[in-house]
């Protein structure tokens, strides 16, 4: 039997995103040359929300992009192909400050793949990583620069991020499977 615990409700997610948006602007020293790139799937929606928040606060129109890292994964043999590979569409990254946005940071392998893919599209001046949930458990030396919330979980735990654009509601849940 699995137990679901709520980590963030819709209002907590909203507050976290507002703080993350202003942290991005702070860390980038403004909004010049900033590009928000969401990792498929829910990173794309989060990047769109951060864009709206930053645009409203700074009167800008930040370019955004989406990245599907499926073809850059290092575990095709282990998990088999994903049935459908998502879309990748990126603006010009040359000399930009690229903010990679994802929902959960866990092993760091997705981010490793995203860095490889971004490099194939251009040479950004700087790359930042922004995640809604950092759940620990890294397998690679990778860290996030802007974090919504941090939790420390074991390998049998799972974090589900649901977003209204895709799932009808905003919630972050911890799904815990007790050891058998």
């Amino acid at each position, binding site marked *: 039997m699995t137990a679901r615990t709520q980590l963030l409700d819709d209002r907590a997610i909203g507050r976290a995103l507002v703080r993350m948006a202003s942290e991005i602007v702070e860390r980038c020293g403004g909004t010049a040359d900033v590009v928000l790139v969401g990792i498929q*799937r*829910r990173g794309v929606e989060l990047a769109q929300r951060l864009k709206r928040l930053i645009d409203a606060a700074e009167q800008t129109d930040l370019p955004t992009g989406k990245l*599907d890292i*499926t*073809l*850059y*994964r290092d*575990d*095709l*043999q282990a*998990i*088999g*192909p*994903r*049935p*459908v*590979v*998502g*879309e*990748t*569409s990126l603006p010009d990254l040359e000399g930009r400050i690229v903010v990679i946005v*994802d*929902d*959960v*940071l*866990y*092993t760091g*392998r*997705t981010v490793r793949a995203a860095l*490889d*893919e971004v490099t*194939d*599209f251009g040479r950004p001046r700087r790359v930042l990583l922004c995640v809604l*949930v950092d*759940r620990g458990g890294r397998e690679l030396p990778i860290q996030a620069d802007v974090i919504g919330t941090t939790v420390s979980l074991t390998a049998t735990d*799972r*974090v*589900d*991020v*649901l*977003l209204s654009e*895709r*799932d009808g509601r905003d919630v972050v849940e911890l799904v815990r499977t007790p050891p058998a």
Partner: protein
Amino acid sequence: MTGLGKDLVGLEPLSADQLRLILDTAEPFKEVSERQIKKVPALRGKTIVNLFFEASTRTRISFEFAEKRLSADTVNVAASGSSVSKGETLVDTAKNLEAMRIDMVVIRHGSSGAASFLGQRIASNVINAGDGKHEHPTQGLLDMLTLRDRFKRLEGIKVAICGDVLHSRVARSNIWGLTKLGAEVGVCGPPPLLPRNIEELGVTILPRIEDAIAWADALNILRLQLERMTAGFIPSLREYNRVFGVTTERLKKAPKDLLILHPGPMNRGVEIDSDVADGEHSVILPQVTNGVAVRMAVLYLLAGGRPGPQQAAGGDEA
């Protein structure tokens, strides 16, 4: 969600879901070929042998681009200049290649069933790039992808396959694939060039090219395969063009604009006139572009070995 299994020998053994899986997977691969760096690391470290016992330019190069754009290492073996010309059997050639630790074989062969025969005897993935008069699955798939691009669906569209259906593996792959996904298929050609009892495959026979033009949404015009014709199937090329050639004059009489496909290489002035081949309704070059995407999808899906897990909710990265 089902995968594709070990080999792709034809479209006949595939289910409608498997066909859709390949076409849907091909979509994102189209974009990879539009990038400045046309390469993704999905098949890094995989070794693929392109074993071509028959002449081919388009298919071989298309497979090679697909392999290279997925970062696989490739070797091309042509029958002439290899030990095949010294009398080595197909299985021996393949077993020797396998002893060098390869992962996949793309094979074109003059004998129907060669790909399936090989697939049962070696552990590597086998992809059929055309076997005799049997099937040419990736050509069928790229035709389907091109039709789906233009019509946004395959269900209910009418495709007339015109010309030398008897000798055509492209025709067979098209018939299997299109009918499984709900399209209507007609065949049109001189009776000696239509296989006997072909209506048992669920296709409509269109006796004259005018009938095909009046009936269809798209024409897939086959090449007259002169190299496979041993007997006198047609009186002359001029006669064939006069009776079955797809010309602008004939297309003008069509009730609607028809999409024009041709698997290539074309015999201009025989089965298709130049102004039709280069005309605004021709998708002959988009077919070639789609060919690379479809082959990338097939290589990618076969390389994975087994189907992937579908994540219900987002969240954890693997």
